[in-house]
């Protein structure tokens, strides 16, 4: 079993507002990632200091890993813990405007949790890729901090209105299938989305901020399809140690440089390799 994480600042950012952490023992593994809203510190009404907020949310989640291993994401406890850190540093609660993704592996499954946007991908042992994304109406993702502020949560519900869940599968030799999109009313939406990846079918599970959807060809406005980017990010050649750092470095520094791809938004990835199948 291995875990690793990676985060890099986007081309249009002056500070990286993504953050990630990962770790494992022989039996259990975790990966946590947060993507701070791209607001400048001095802007109004942007969300200031979300680089701090992203880190606090990740740290706070790490304190509550036992709950995650039990299959429950303790929304209120994580939010309150992070809010305490925010208050300690005398920042605005707006700093908590950050998405939160987590994965824990215990036994035969890796379970993922998602609050807000971002991408979750599993690499099958046969080389396929299954991904899940969330898109909120008005590009306003849900932030955990809203659970502590009824007014902001109401405002979010009134403005976002809908959420769209997308999933697709890449099969070696066949390519990508037709993406499945389900749009639902935000009122019916469960704040924390979960997915289960069976260890027998999937060897790697990756969490990614929505920066993975911000790749473009340099000098153009042509977006690179998420599927094309995922093929690169998931092409992990060796799962030993810093397997995500190696893949992301090679992807960003070599492949993107050679092919003229840039990522405008911060890009982060954290994940778990669940190890070989033991008969």
């Amino acid at each position, binding site marked *: 079993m291995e875990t690793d994480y990676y985060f890099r600042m986007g081309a249009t950012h002056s500070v990286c507002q993504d953050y990630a952490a990962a770790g494992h023992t022989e039996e259990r593994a975790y990966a946590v990632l947060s993507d701070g809203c791209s607001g400048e510190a001095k802007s109004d009404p942007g969300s200031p200091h979300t680089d701090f907020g992203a880190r606090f949310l990740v740290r706070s989640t790490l304190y509550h890993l036992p709950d995650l291993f039990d299959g429950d994401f303790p929304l209120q406890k994580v939010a309150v813990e992070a809010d305490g850190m925010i208050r300690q540093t005398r920042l605005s609660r707006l700093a908590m405007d950050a998405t939160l993704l987590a994965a824990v592996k215990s036994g035969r499954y890796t379970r993922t949790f998602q609050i807000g946007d971002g991408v979750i991908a599993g690499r099958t042992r046969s080389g396929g890729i299954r991904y899940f994304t969330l898109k909120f109406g008005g590009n306003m993702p849900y932030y955990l901090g809203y659970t502590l502020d009824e007014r902001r949560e109401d405002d979010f519900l009134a403005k976002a209105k809908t959420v769209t869940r997308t999933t697709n599968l890449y099969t070696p030799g066949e390519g990508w299938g037709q993406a499945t999109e389900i749009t639902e009313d935000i009122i019916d939406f469960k704040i924390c989305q979960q997915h289960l990846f069976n260890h027998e079918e999937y060897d790697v599970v990756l969490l990614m901020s929505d920066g993975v959807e911000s790749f473009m060809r340099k000098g153009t406005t042509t977006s690179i399809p998420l599927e094309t980017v995922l093929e690169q990010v998931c092409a*992990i*050649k*060796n799962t*030993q*140690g*810093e397997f995500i*750092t*190696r*893949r992301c*470095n*090679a992807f960003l*520094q070599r492949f993107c440089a050679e092919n003229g791809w840039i990522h405008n938004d911060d890009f982060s990835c954290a994940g778990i390799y669940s190890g070989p199948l033991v008969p």
Partner: protein
Amino acid sequence: MPIFSDDAETFKANGSGFQFSGVNISKLGASEYTLVGAACDRSSSVTPFASEIEKCVIESFKACQKSARVDNLLARLLAFGTEVTEEHGFRPLADCHLANYDGFLKPGGTTKLYDACVDTVDAMATYGKDLISQDYTANGIVIIITDGADYGSRFKAHHVKEAMMRARQSESLESLVSLLIGINVKEPSIAQYLKDFQGEGGFDKYVEAADASAKTIAKLVDFISKSISMQSQAVNSGGPSQLVTF
């Protein structure tokens, strides 16, 4: 007998075709590595100060083992006399038990300097290319320690330069720093020979130690360990490190 008999894999170097060994790449956990290729003269003329050369290698590696970058260093050690011998292939410096290095030189015979240089550079470039193909970032530093002129090599000085160019042009390594160290160089003709070989062989720097005294060895240890450390810090920067002053 090689210093370590472990489960290293055998590789065949591009260019010269020398065989070399290295730890199985799939077992390497870091994302970036600096390859350290060191080759030491074991010709009969180094007999009076062979233990000083050994000490120079041991102390330099020891200093690197204390560095924060130790987990990102892979070292390969050669000795050259009448034959070029791989004392150990590329292996994590942290796993190099330096007590095993005592007495590895066993001087005697001629000086296959050029063969050792080509072997060191080609093996590094080949291993580096394999690392990069597996998504690792890699750069390298070559350290050749000799007290005299080549005798008996099948390669010539210009082949060393060609090997350096192959390593730099084939995208095998992000960058390469090459150091030629003349030790106990007392004769002006040898000093001139080694200075000329720096240019003909394409080395980045030639440093000359007039003797093998404890003070000189300490200075060399400092130079070598700092050079390795600087090159290691330069990995993933796109270019080589600045050369350290001797």
